[in-house]
């Protein structure tokens, strides 16, 4: 008799859920992420990536050739302190607009007000050399001699393009090599405190101000640090510091 009561209760609950869906309100909305990019006030996308001329905080005039970056370990935490983690990672290539969207495989969470946290690159646990076939295929590995795993960022272009002697820069970020065979984790946890209210299926815009890579706290002088930055410990740690102010929450589309 008890069992029948339990089953009956379950049936009622299930039916009520169905009614909710019929009312078009969602108990566990789907959440995905859309990365947009700008250089201060100028939007950067696939159509102007290679044509826009921008100036960094140190005054170098820059043309961009390509930008790719990796983000992972997305988490939304609500006001009660409950955290919902999303599996997967996203490799964004600014030349390919489809890659701006990160849609986790399982992305249902309860309605509520949240803040977003994610990892720039891979954390130590995830940054396993050769582990991810899609990233291997995308030529995204970080050399074993520098600690292995994967790049977090590849940002290539020319600077001093307003002079007769423009020069290349390769602003690449990943694990930091302290000395031969000694490595230091170099990922960054990006915690964005802007509250995100989720009442329905939601796309969260994450804005990336590329100019900030060269701005805070380290005003980047490309004349000094332009190439061969991957094995340069100081440059790698400066990038890790500068990445903290690059991202912000944009539009919440529901």
């Amino acid at each position, binding site marked *: 008799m008890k069992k029948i009561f339990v089953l009956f209760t379950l049936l009622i609950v299930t039916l009520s859920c169905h009614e909710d869906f019929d009312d078009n309100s969602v108990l566990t909305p789907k959440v995905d992420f859309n990365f947009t990019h700008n250089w201060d006030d100028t939007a950067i996308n696939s159509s102007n990536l*290679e*044509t826009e001329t921008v100036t960094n905080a140190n005054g170098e005039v820059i043309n961009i*050739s390509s930008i790719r970056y990796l983000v992972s370990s997305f988490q939304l935490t609500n006001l009660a302190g409950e955290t919902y983690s999303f599996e997967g990672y996203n490799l964004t290539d600014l030349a390919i607009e489809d890659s701006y969207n990160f849609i986790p495989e399982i992305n249902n969470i309860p309605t509520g007000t949240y803040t977003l946290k994610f990892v720039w690159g891979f954390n130590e646990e995830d940054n396993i*050399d*050769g582990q991810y*076939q*899609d990233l*291997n*295929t995308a*030529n995204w*590995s970080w*050399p*074993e*001699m520098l600690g292995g795993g994967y790049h977090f960022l*590849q940002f*290539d*272009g*020319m600077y001093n393009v307003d002079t007769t*002697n423009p*020069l*290349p*820069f*390769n602003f*690449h970020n990943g694990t930091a090599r302290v000395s031969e065979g000694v490595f230091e984790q170099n990922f960054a946890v990006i915690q964005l405190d802007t509250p995100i209210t989720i009442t329905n299926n939601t796309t969260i815009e994450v804005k990336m101000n590329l100019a900030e890579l060269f701005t805070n706290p380290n005003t980047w002088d490309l004349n000094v640090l*332009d*190439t*061969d*930055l*991957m*094995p340069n410990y100081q440059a790698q740690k400066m990038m890790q510091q500068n990445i903290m102010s690059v991202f912000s929450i944009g539009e919440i589309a529901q």
Partner: protein
Amino acid sequence: MRHWLIYCFVFSILLGCSSEDAKQDNTYVPIPYQLDIPVLFQNKLIDPIIPIDNQLTVEGVALGKRLFFDNILSVNNTKACVSCHSPQNAFTDSNQFSVGVTNTSGSRNSMPLFNMAWNFDDRYFWDGHALGLEQQALEPVIDAIELGNDSWEPVEAKLNNHPEYPQLFKQAFGTSTITKTLVTKAIAQFERTLISGNSKFDKFSNGEVTLTAQEQNGLSVFMDESKGDCFHCHGNPNNPLWTDNKFHNNGLDATFSDLGLGQVTGNPNDNGKFKSPSLRNLAYTAPYMHDGRFTTLDEVIEHYSTGLQPSSTIDPLMKKVGQGGVNLSTQDKADLKAFLLTLSDPSFINNPAFIQQ
């Protein structure tokens, strides 16, 4: 008992139908072809791309192979695909420029053919103008200085009047009416089977052999951003394709006589960009670069070391262009070459499945 009678009746009708269908249709179902994917590729790379409308079959691959080696595709029956894509040269041409039916040379070096099912952007030719292997194969047949036909119609006619080809197409594609679409589908099927994954370095990656100290140092030069920095465009031990299959201006010229990708896209930022070729099988694929300007690997290494030419679209990865290149030491150049030669796969160029029997 009555039930049994009904079952027998229905069964006999079904049998009658199926035998009647077989007589009318006479459809041969081709056998699915399983690609022989190296374990290293299975571990490191995502699955190869096979178009949904051109799945590999045993009959399709065999037909494609026969067509690849058959002079029937040329206007005067003197040249075939293999004339410029020789198996001994990892399916490229040892000549700087290939010579077609008119004895006229082209202006670019023939591209080697292997591991194309892992070319995920699916763009072919040095300038990437063909989307898909099937599209690529349409061109040489009607290129005046390659196989020399004015159009595909006479080629289709020759094949349709051939004593054997209609039956082979019937078995591979279910129709004996031969069209250019089916010809290129068959050739593309064969080309997708051209997999090279058994070089010394592959065996090293699989833990089967060791590298010499020189080869090991050459790998370090290859992977060191402060030295060769080859890996940003040409793969790494985790990407055994040894190419990014992208387009770059690698500093060959200050001005361009051949615009490359720029000619295709119309975007001046793409001028002078050409596809990164795989470094696999370099031992067999000389001469090098899109125009075959370098006859030896030493010349190629010297180009990146001291020969870079600045231009408006030079890839920023050619970072030492101001100093002419990465200025490798004599020892590092020799070691880099030793490493590059470990990417050669003799079992590929000698594979009986890829050679005319």
